[in-house]
């Protein structure tokens, strides 16, 4: 992991979370969740601080953080686009959507644009196969996606709220 890009993490923001669970055993997962709420992801310094405070070895904390898909170890964009690549969506054209995103925004699935505006993630089946191909932008589900429509929606969303935190 590249420590440089995590420099300047303000660990003070974590104190409330740690204080809340002080002395509680088995609270690692809720602590990680709250910490992720604070930072948007789990930088290594945060994992180390959590390890020190809970007395759980940092190798264990990291093991838990990497095990669950809900935890992010890399900084994420201000907008999150989830692209479904489950069987139904794949057949209905997710690869084409992914290419369009790459052409317009320069990001492949799993990456974040350089300005930190957009992260594209792949998921496998959102349970809405009837609407395939499905994409989810900042929590909003969009079915029967076509490339132009997807690019336009994303441009609008990123452009509109580009500078703000979500």
């Amino acid at each position: 992991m590249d420590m440089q890009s995590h420099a300047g993490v303000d660990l003070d923001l974590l104190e409330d979370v740690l204080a809340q669970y002080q002395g509680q055993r088995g609270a690692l997962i809720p602590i990680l969740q709250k910490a992720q709420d604070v930072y948007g992801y789990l930088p290594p310094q945060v994992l180390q601080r959590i390890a020190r405070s809970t007395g759980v070895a940092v190798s264990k904390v990291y093991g838990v953080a990497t095990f669950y898909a809900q935890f992010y170890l890399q900084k994420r964009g201000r907008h999150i686009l989830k692209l479904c690549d489950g069987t139904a969506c794949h057949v209905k054209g997710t690869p084409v959507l992914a290419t369009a995103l790459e052409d317009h925004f320069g990001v492949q699935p799993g990456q974040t644009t350089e300005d930190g505006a957009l992260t594209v993630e792949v998921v496998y089946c959102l349970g809405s196969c009837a609407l395939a191909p499905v994409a989810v932008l900042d929590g909003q589900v969009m079915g029967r996606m076509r490339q132009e429509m997807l690019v336009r929606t994303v441009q609008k969303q990123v452009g509109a709220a580009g500078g703000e935190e979500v």
Partner: protein
Amino acid sequence: MSDLITITIDGKEIPAQRGEMLTKAARRAGIEIPVFCGHPKLDPIGACRMCLVEQETPRGRALITACTTPVSEGMVIHYGSEKAVDARQGTLEMILINHPLDCPICDKGGECPLQDHTLAHGPGKSHFWEEKHHKAKNYPLSDLILLDQERCILCWRCIRYLGEWEDKPQLGLFHRGGETVIDKFPDGELDAYTSGSIIDLCPVGALTNRPARFSYRPWELRKTPSICTHCGQGCNLRIDSRDDIVRRHVARENVAVNDEWICDKGRFADDISVSPARLQQPLARIAGQLQPVSWAEALQRVVSGLKGVAERHGPAAIGAIGSAKASNEANYLLGKFMRGVIGSNNLDHREGAALLADPRGLPSLEAARHADLILLMGCDPSEEMPVLATLLKRAAIRQAAAVVIVHPRRIELARYPGHCFQPAPGEEPALFDALTRATLAGRGEPIPAWLAGAAEDAQITAAANALAAAQRPFILYGSDYAWGFGARAIVASLTNWVTAAGHGDRLGFLHAQANSQGAGDMGMLPDFLPGRRPLADAKARGDLEALWQTELPSQPGLTYGGMLASARGRIKALYLLGANPAGEKPADAAALKALDFLVVQELFLTETAQLADVVLPAASYVEGDGTFTNSERRVQRAPQAVKPVGNAAPDWLILTHLARAYAPERAAAWSTTSVAALFAEITQAAPLYAGMTWENLGAGGRQWPWQALSLQRSVQPYKPAALPADPAYPLRLVVGNQLWDDGVVLAASPALAQQGIKAARLHPTDAAALGLHSGDAITLRSRSGSVRTTVHVDDAIKPGTVFLPYSLAGAPAGALFDEYAPRSAVGVG
């Protein structure tokens, strides 16, 4: 309820111990249930499913993991049933799905349980044709260990070892499913001193020995059961060689000594036989220069040099210095030569007469495992005896043994609950007096007047009570408190405390060198004969005279320090075997130059050898047979594993030839032709070794009993020694051993030269006051001299002291030693 029960495996009744794991009971009955994650030294976890068997239950047969199932009376197991066989095949097939199958280039190939289990239990072919997952290969976990994540079968052994034994859980399992990998935390360390144990434990070729990699195929190795000679623990290991080159060391089990572990120095510092710096040829000073000569000429020069001095100045002008790193045989014969042939008792070694060690070392290493309290005074097992430190950690965790430490540094083991005292140099006796007083008070015993003034506080009372209440304390003191100015007072006062607490017979000494115990046992001392018999004992002298067919001088000789101090005076010739005073103390180099004649028997052309008139190249311990006696008086064999380099010869052979050349009329007393025969002679000369033979030392060695020498201990007043302050030199020197030193052995190992922090250490407050940061160059000065080194800021250091490890390249602590050494006053600047 009897502990012996009966279980049934495949219709056969077998006896078992109640509660033992099914794998173990089966193995005893000859049924080898395959395991990967299961390991006798690690807690069972049942992670790999390799050991599946069927068990009869009231609800029919169920698949269970044998490695996590304790046996119980009447248990019925099916190992060879179709379902069990199928299950194990399935497990192996699963494991092999993503395995890279690069066995031809894997160091483990040929000694790999995965290969063996696949042969015995696996399917002949795979159903799997998809692309395999790819993960990191040749990924360095440290400078010493490589990880191949593709070969890893996720058995957790490495993770468990580091957690359960080292208490350094630095490896973990990350990600999930087919992506799961073993790794460190990003940018994390893998720095446990026994980290290499995970290479031995890994059942596949996922963890490999980085320096040794690709230098052998396991089946071509010649395997010699031996020991480690890097410290006084004497861990058992195996030396694997090919083409007369040592390829690797692996741990060998000896539960009494090292369990099944060796430290990273013992494992990786194995290059001594291939070092280009080794001496290969005798050298003699001809026209002012050291030049290669034949053995015959070298020995002739030694004979005439020593004879000349003996004739001109008498035998008392000749002295010899042996070595706590050399074998019993080397030290014994050097003593026999000096006393029996030359006629001088000037005989000692660096850790000899000046070191206030218990002549019996420590009671028993195994006792560390059962301790309910650990008391360490002036020693640091992590740096001086790392495998012992591992055993102590285990006792601290598993048995909640309190750890009480008295040391100028906050040593690693201070991380366990207990008490850590850091008295400043010079203040130790006052602390021990207070502990003694608190102990006597706690036991309701009278307090002698000389102790009445000792000041107590709550921590002192608590520590005193803890020791007095302990049932099985493991108690050690070490060299940091046992030599130099004030050491008598420290050792007397700490002995008082331990004695007052009722544990006088458990007080042991941690010998930092491999054969400190043996060198003393062999009589490498000015006033003791072999077997720790006093020189003054006429009967002992008589016995030895009969055995050696000679007359022995009865005047005690000079000590190590005494010989060097007299090198400009009445000592005219010295014979040094494995000793390097010139490298340790510049003043001693000057003294050696003043001698008429200097012989050095060595592995390397050390600072001292460079001054010699004759240099005799010695074989290292892997190049000849020998015995060593560890800190718990265990005499162990180190048989020859490879040929000596060049023309180097084993110490015992050099000394035998020398004695015969020096005194042909005594040749009959110098006629042994093997180490086995020589060892037989030693057991006659040293009654403590009676009953031992080269053969019966066997694979695990034999101890002479702690009770063989009894020491009467009682609480006694002692002579205090005041350490005067010196305003010109405001800091106090603290010296000590560190595992990764700059000594010749590690310098010979390219892989190890970079390990550890090679610097003087200061507490942050002192560093800040001096405006120093880690990595800065500094000069340390005392009234006697100065050294230049770098500084490392470390809050484990006692404020007001500077810690200087021994054998830092270019910064010998001895340069700073004055009459208060090693507790000399020093300044920075």
